[in-house]
């Protein structure tokens, strides 16, 4: 039986991969996917803590996280579509009008 520590380490690794993806990729869609990886790493932590503390609250918070993730994906992808229509590229380097 894997211990809580195993799950926490796995979750930390996944979160790190997601964070690295946000910084390394130069494609808006892949950046959103990396955010999803981070959200899932946090979900894993919630469920693992809930399981090892004998509480069902972790699982319920995961549902809320999933709803927020769905809303985030819908709005985020709508913004991506609008930006692509505007500049014809998904490279975040192209959007620097607000950059000083």
């Amino acid at each position, binding site marked *: *039986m894997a211990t809580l520590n195993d799950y926490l380490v796995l979750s930390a690794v996944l979160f790190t991969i997601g964070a690295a993806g946000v910084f390394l990729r*130069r*494609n808006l869609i892949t950046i959103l*996917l990396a955010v999803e990886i981070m959200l899932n790493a946090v979900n894993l932590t919630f469920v693992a803590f809930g399981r090892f503390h004998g509480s069902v609250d972790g699982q319920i918070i995961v549902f809320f996280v*999933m709803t927020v993730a*769905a809303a985030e994906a819908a709005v985020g992808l709508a913004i991506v*579509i609008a930006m692509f229509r505007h500049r014809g*590229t998904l490279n975040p380097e192209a959007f620097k009008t607000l950059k000083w």
Partner: protein
Amino acid sequence: MAGDLAFFYVFAAVAVGTSLLVIGQRNPIYSVLLLIASFGALAGLYVLLDAPFVAVTQIIVYAGAIMVLFLFVVMLLNAPREEPIDPERLVEPQGARWFGALLAVFLLVELGWAVARGSRALFGRASFDSVRVEQLSSVRFIGTVLYSDYAFAFEVTSILILVAMVGAVLLARRHEKEV
């Protein structure tokens, strides 16, 4: 229970491996498909954690609905491949690079410290008595808690979804004058 541990390592390896491949791809369509595999492995981990309902929701909502939305957008935009980096951009200020490296090392040390410090008495505990575990994996119990203790949060979530829906439609709408 040795089988459980083997399953944990298999699912963990698949999840980490596919996640690494997701951020290692230049073509977004492969990234999306690999992420679905990663979510499948996570669903397996949820089953190991006695949370079958979360596992099923993960497959249906995440791998099913959200990833299809991503796939749809990738195909709608004709999946432009990521261009190789401009060599001129690599000449960035040394200070920023050192600062970033320092922050990364700091985070790594912090995480290692937190994981190593976790007391075995709490984090090393394998399981509770079977009655509690049975309750944890019961959909009936989850539903009872969700619609009593978390009823307000649940209702607020519906407003969030409504706002997200209106926002998405408004943002992605084609403006008449632009065309």
